[in-house]
Protein backbone atom coordinates (compact mmCIF):
# COMPACT_ATOMS: atom_id res chain seq x y z
CA UNK A 1 0.00 0.00 0.00
CA UNK A 2 2.76 2.38 0.98
CA UNK A 3 4.59 1.51 -2.23
CA UNK A 4 1.53 2.26 -4.31
CA UNK A 5 1.18 5.68 -2.70
CA UNK A 6 4.85 6.46 -3.30
CA UNK A 7 4.52 5.42 -6.91
CA UNK A 8 1.65 7.85 -7.45
CA UNK A 9 3.77 10.77 -6.29
CA UNK A 10 6.96 9.78 -8.08
CA UNK A 11 8.33 12.54 -10.34
CA UNK A 12 7.10 12.14 -13.90
CA UNK A 13 9.12 13.33 -16.85
CA UNK A 14 7.52 16.07 -18.91
CA UNK A 15 8.12 13.78 -21.89
CA UNK A 16 6.63 10.64 -20.31
CA UNK A 17 4.19 9.07 -22.74
CA UNK A 18 5.35 11.41 -25.51
CA UNK A 19 8.97 10.56 -26.24
CA UNK A 20 9.87 6.90 -26.75
CA UNK A 21 13.42 5.65 -27.16
CA UNK A 22 14.11 4.28 -30.60
CA UNK A 23 14.29 5.41 -34.19
CA UNK A 24 11.80 7.49 -36.14
CA UNK A 25 11.61 8.49 -39.79
CA UNK A 26 14.01 7.52 -42.56
CA UNK A 27 15.25 3.99 -41.90
CA UNK A 28 18.98 3.33 -41.71
CA UNK A 29 19.88 7.00 -41.24
CA UNK A 30 20.60 8.92 -38.07
CA UNK A 31 21.08 12.54 -39.05
CA UNK A 32 19.48 13.86 -35.87
CA UNK A 33 19.57 12.73 -32.25
CA UNK A 34 17.05 13.84 -29.65
CA UNK A 35 17.45 13.38 -25.91
CA UNK A 36 15.04 14.45 -23.18
CA UNK A 37 16.66 16.82 -20.70
CA UNK A 38 14.96 15.52 -17.60
CA UNK A 39 15.76 16.30 -14.02
CA UNK A 40 17.01 19.84 -14.51
CA UNK A 41 16.49 22.36 -11.76
CA UNK A 42 14.93 25.42 -13.39
CA UNK A 43 14.02 28.76 -11.86
CA UNK A 44 13.00 32.06 -13.38
CA UNK A 45 14.70 35.15 -11.97
CA UNK A 46 13.24 38.61 -12.47
CA UNK A 47 15.23 41.57 -11.21
CA UNK A 48 13.35 44.52 -9.71
CA UNK A 49 13.63 47.88 -11.47
CA UNK A 50 17.23 49.11 -11.11
CA UNK A 51 18.09 45.89 -9.26
CA UNK A 52 19.97 44.03 -11.95
CA UNK A 53 23.41 44.77 -10.53
CA UNK A 54 22.45 43.44 -7.09
CA UNK A 55 21.00 40.29 -8.64
CA UNK A 56 24.08 39.78 -10.82
CA UNK A 57 26.26 40.07 -7.74
CA UNK A 58 24.17 37.58 -5.77
CA UNK A 59 24.14 35.07 -8.64
CA UNK A 60 27.89 35.40 -9.02
CA UNK A 61 28.42 34.82 -5.30
CA UNK A 62 26.03 31.88 -5.02
CA UNK A 63 26.59 30.09 -8.33
CA UNK A 64 29.75 31.60 -9.84
CA UNK A 65 27.76 32.70 -12.88
CA UNK A 66 27.89 35.95 -14.81
CA UNK A 67 24.33 36.82 -15.85
CA UNK A 68 24.36 37.44 -19.61
CA UNK A 69 23.19 40.92 -20.62
CA UNK A 70 22.31 39.77 -24.13
CA UNK A 71 20.46 36.67 -25.38
CA UNK A 72 23.04 34.06 -24.37
CA UNK A 73 23.72 31.26 -21.92
CA UNK A 74 26.47 31.43 -19.29
CA UNK A 75 27.76 28.29 -17.65
CA UNK A 76 29.76 27.57 -14.52
CA UNK A 77 30.14 24.16 -12.93
CA UNK A 78 26.77 22.47 -12.62
CA UNK A 79 24.78 25.65 -13.21
CA UNK A 80 23.83 27.86 -16.12
CA UNK A 81 21.98 31.13 -16.60
CA UNK A 82 20.04 31.86 -19.78
CA UNK A 83 18.84 35.33 -20.75
CA UNK A 84 15.04 35.29 -20.79
CA UNK A 85 14.10 38.89 -21.62
CA UNK A 86 15.19 42.27 -20.25
CA UNK A 87 15.98 41.86 -16.55
CA UNK A 88 15.00 38.19 -16.63
CA UNK A 89 16.92 34.93 -16.63
CA UNK A 90 16.40 31.23 -16.24
CA UNK A 91 18.72 29.60 -13.76
CA UNK A 92 19.45 25.97 -14.60
CA UNK A 93 20.94 23.31 -12.35
CA UNK A 94 22.17 19.89 -13.37
CA UNK A 95 20.09 18.26 -10.65
CA UNK A 96 17.17 19.30 -8.49
CA UNK A 97 18.84 18.05 -5.35
CA UNK A 98 19.43 21.06 -3.09
CA UNK A 99 18.21 23.46 -5.78
CA UNK A 100 15.35 24.99 -3.78
CA UNK A 101 17.72 25.64 -0.89
CA UNK A 102 20.31 27.21 -3.18
CA UNK A 103 17.67 29.59 -4.53
CA UNK A 104 17.25 31.07 -1.07
CA UNK A 105 20.44 33.02 -1.70
CA UNK A 106 18.51 35.10 -4.26
CA UNK A 107 15.28 35.60 -2.35
CA UNK A 108 15.94 39.22 -1.46
CA UNK A 109 17.24 40.39 -4.82
CA UNK A 110 14.87 38.92 -7.40
CA UNK A 111 11.44 37.50 -7.95
CA UNK A 112 12.34 33.81 -8.01
CA UNK A 113 9.92 31.17 -9.26
CA UNK A 114 10.94 27.55 -9.44
CA UNK A 115 10.00 26.09 -12.83
CA UNK A 116 11.64 22.66 -12.62
CA UNK A 117 8.37 20.84 -13.27
CA UNK A 118 6.98 23.58 -15.46
CA UNK A 119 9.24 23.26 -18.49
CA UNK A 120 10.05 20.48 -20.90
CA UNK A 121 13.52 20.49 -22.42
CA UNK A 122 15.20 18.57 -25.22
CA UNK A 123 18.75 18.28 -26.49
CA UNK A 124 18.85 18.20 -30.29
CA UNK A 125 21.95 17.34 -32.25
CA UNK A 126 23.27 15.94 -35.48
CA UNK A 127 24.34 17.12 -38.92
CA UNK A 128 20.79 17.84 -40.16
CA UNK A 129 19.35 19.44 -37.05
CA UNK A 130 19.37 22.92 -38.59
CA UNK A 131 17.42 21.67 -41.59
CA UNK A 132 14.78 20.20 -39.30
CA UNK A 133 14.52 23.31 -37.13
CA UNK A 134 14.31 25.53 -40.21
CA UNK A 135 10.91 24.06 -40.96
CA UNK A 136 9.41 25.95 -38.05
CA UNK A 137 12.01 28.27 -36.56
CA UNK A 138 12.10 31.75 -38.09
CA UNK A 139 15.61 32.47 -36.81
CA UNK A 140 18.81 32.08 -38.79
CA UNK A 141 20.62 29.30 -36.95
CA UNK A 142 23.67 29.29 -39.25
CA UNK A 143 26.87 29.18 -37.16
CA UNK A 144 27.78 32.70 -38.29
CA UNK A 145 24.45 34.14 -37.13
CA UNK A 146 23.91 31.90 -34.11
CA UNK A 147 27.22 30.96 -32.46
CA UNK A 148 27.75 28.55 -29.57
CA UNK A 149 26.35 30.07 -26.39
CA UNK A 150 23.74 32.23 -28.09
CA UNK A 151 20.15 31.97 -26.90
CA UNK A 152 16.79 33.13 -28.22
CA UNK A 153 13.15 33.35 -27.32
CA UNK A 154 10.92 32.78 -30.31
CA UNK A 155 8.02 30.69 -31.46
CA UNK A 156 7.92 27.47 -33.43
CA UNK A 157 4.60 26.12 -34.71
CA UNK A 158 2.86 28.82 -32.63
CA UNK A 159 4.52 27.51 -29.47
CA UNK A 160 6.77 29.75 -27.41
CA UNK A 161 10.25 28.25 -27.21
CA UNK A 162 13.47 29.11 -25.44
CA UNK A 163 16.49 27.75 -27.28
CA UNK A 164 20.22 28.04 -27.12
CA UNK A 165 23.23 26.52 -28.83
CA UNK A 166 25.51 24.27 -26.80
CA UNK A 167 29.01 23.11 -27.61
CA UNK A 168 29.14 21.13 -30.84
CA UNK A 169 29.42 17.37 -30.58
CA UNK A 170 31.39 15.23 -33.07
CA UNK A 171 28.18 14.70 -35.09
CA UNK A 172 27.51 18.42 -35.49
CA UNK A 173 25.65 21.28 -33.85
CA UNK A 174 23.80 20.90 -30.56
CA UNK A 175 20.73 22.92 -29.60
CA UNK A 176 18.82 22.77 -26.37
CA UNK A 177 15.20 23.79 -26.55
CA UNK A 178 12.63 24.35 -23.85
CA UNK A 179 8.87 24.73 -23.99
CA UNK A 180 6.19 25.08 -21.34
CA UNK A 181 5.45 21.59 -20.07
CA UNK A 182 1.82 21.68 -21.18
CA UNK A 183 3.02 22.22 -24.76
CA UNK A 184 5.35 19.20 -24.82
CA UNK A 185 2.87 17.03 -26.72
CA UNK A 186 2.06 19.69 -29.30
CA UNK A 187 5.72 20.57 -29.77
CA UNK A 188 6.59 16.91 -30.25
CA UNK A 189 3.94 16.57 -32.91
CA UNK A 190 5.73 19.31 -34.90
CA UNK A 191 9.27 18.13 -34.12
CA UNK A 192 8.69 14.44 -34.83
CA UNK A 193 7.15 15.30 -38.20
CA UNK A 194 10.00 17.70 -39.01
CA UNK A 195 12.88 15.32 -38.23
CA UNK A 196 11.32 12.26 -39.89
CA UNK A 197 12.73 12.77 -43.38
CA UNK A 198 16.29 12.87 -42.00
CA UNK A 199 16.05 9.85 -39.71
CA UNK A 200 16.23 10.45 -35.98
CA UNK A 201 17.34 8.52 -32.92
CA UNK A 202 15.66 9.20 -29.61
CA UNK A 203 18.00 8.36 -26.76
CA UNK A 204 17.98 8.48 -22.98
CA UNK A 205 18.97 11.77 -21.42
CA UNK A 206 22.44 12.17 -19.99
CA UNK A 207 24.45 15.10 -21.28
CA UNK A 208 25.06 18.06 -19.01
CA UNK A 209 23.70 21.55 -19.50
CA UNK A 210 24.89 23.34 -22.56
CA UNK A 211 27.83 21.03 -23.15
CA UNK A 212 28.51 18.45 -25.79
Amino acid sequence: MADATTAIWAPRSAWAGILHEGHIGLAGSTSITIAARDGLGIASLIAPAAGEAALAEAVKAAFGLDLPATPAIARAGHHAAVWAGPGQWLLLAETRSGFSDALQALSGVAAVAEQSSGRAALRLSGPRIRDALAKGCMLDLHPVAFPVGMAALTSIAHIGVHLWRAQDCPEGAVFEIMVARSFAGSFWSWLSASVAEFGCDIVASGASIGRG
Partner: protein
Amino acid sequence: MRITCPYCGARDAQEFGYLGDANPQRPDGMDATEAAMHDYVHLRDNPAGRHRELWYHGAGCHAWLVVTRDTRTHAIEAVEVARKTKAGAAA
Protein backbone atom coordinates in the same frame (compact mmCIF):
# COMPACT_ATOMS: atom_id res chain seq x y z
CA MET B 1 7.42 42.93 -42.24
CA ARG B 2 10.24 42.55 -39.76
CA ILE B 3 10.69 44.52 -36.57
CA THR B 4 14.17 44.81 -35.08
CA CYS B 5 13.62 44.26 -31.38
CA PRO B 6 16.32 46.14 -29.43
CA TYR B 7 16.84 43.00 -27.33
CA CYS B 8 16.30 40.11 -29.74
CA GLY B 9 17.24 41.47 -33.16
CA ALA B 10 15.20 41.34 -36.36
CA ARG B 11 12.09 39.21 -35.99
CA ASP B 12 9.06 38.48 -38.09
CA ALA B 13 6.03 40.68 -37.35
CA GLN B 14 4.02 37.61 -36.33
CA GLU B 15 6.05 37.47 -33.11
CA PHE B 16 4.58 40.85 -32.15
CA GLY B 17 1.21 42.13 -31.12
CA TYR B 18 0.00 45.57 -32.21
CA LEU B 19 -1.58 47.97 -29.75
CA GLY B 20 -1.87 51.27 -31.63
CA ASP B 21 -0.79 54.88 -31.41
CA ALA B 22 1.99 55.39 -28.86
CA ASN B 23 1.37 59.09 -28.37
CA PRO B 24 -1.84 59.44 -26.32
CA GLN B 25 -1.15 60.00 -22.63
CA ARG B 26 -3.85 59.02 -20.18
CA PRO B 27 -5.33 62.08 -18.51
CA ASP B 28 -5.78 62.07 -14.76
CA GLY B 29 -9.19 60.42 -14.56
CA MET B 30 -10.19 62.30 -11.40
CA ASP B 31 -9.55 65.73 -12.85
CA ALA B 32 -9.94 65.34 -16.62
CA THR B 33 -13.04 66.51 -18.41
CA GLU B 34 -15.33 63.99 -20.00
CA ALA B 35 -14.27 65.28 -23.40
CA ALA B 36 -10.56 64.71 -22.62
CA MET B 37 -11.24 61.14 -21.51
CA HIS B 38 -13.36 60.56 -24.59
CA ASP B 39 -10.51 61.77 -26.78
CA TYR B 40 -8.01 59.55 -25.00
CA VAL B 41 -10.14 56.42 -25.13
CA HIS B 42 -11.73 56.69 -28.54
CA LEU B 43 -10.17 59.22 -30.88
CA ARG B 44 -7.12 58.33 -32.95
CA ASP B 45 -5.46 59.90 -35.95
CA ASN B 46 -5.08 57.67 -38.96
CA PRO B 47 -2.01 59.11 -40.65
CA ALA B 48 -0.82 58.12 -44.09
CA GLY B 49 2.88 58.22 -43.31
CA ARG B 50 4.95 58.41 -40.17
CA HIS B 51 3.31 56.80 -37.14
CA ARG B 52 4.62 56.07 -33.65
CA GLU B 53 2.96 52.93 -32.42
CA LEU B 54 3.16 50.36 -29.66
CA TRP B 55 4.11 46.77 -30.37
CA TYR B 56 4.47 43.93 -27.88
CA HIS B 57 7.09 41.22 -28.44
CA GLY B 58 4.79 38.55 -27.06
CA ALA B 59 6.45 35.55 -28.73
CA GLY B 60 9.91 36.73 -27.74
CA CYS B 61 11.24 38.79 -24.85
CA HIS B 62 7.88 40.26 -23.78
CA ALA B 63 9.11 43.84 -24.12
CA TRP B 64 6.82 46.70 -25.13
CA LEU B 65 8.29 48.67 -28.02
CA VAL B 66 7.61 52.02 -29.65
CA VAL B 67 8.01 51.56 -33.40
CA THR B 68 8.13 54.51 -35.79
CA ARG B 69 6.72 53.19 -39.04
CA ASP B 70 5.56 54.65 -42.33
CA THR B 71 2.01 53.33 -42.72
CA ARG B 72 2.25 53.57 -46.51
CA THR B 73 5.47 51.60 -47.02
CA HIS B 74 5.95 49.74 -43.70
CA ALA B 75 9.45 51.19 -43.63
CA ILE B 76 10.57 51.28 -40.01
CA GLU B 77 12.54 54.31 -38.95
CA ALA B 78 13.13 53.57 -35.27
CA VAL B 79 12.40 50.97 -32.61
CA GLU B 80 12.70 51.99 -28.97
CA VAL B 81 11.95 50.25 -25.71
CA ALA B 82 8.66 51.74 -24.47
CA ARG B 83 9.71 51.68 -20.84
CA LYS B 84 12.73 53.89 -21.57
CA THR B 85 10.75 56.20 -23.85
CA LYS B 86 8.06 56.81 -21.22
CA ALA B 87 10.63 57.47 -18.54
CA GLY B 88 12.29 60.17 -20.61
CA ALA B 89 10.38 62.27 -23.13
CA ALA B 90 6.72 63.21 -22.94
CA ALA B 91 6.06 60.96 -25.89
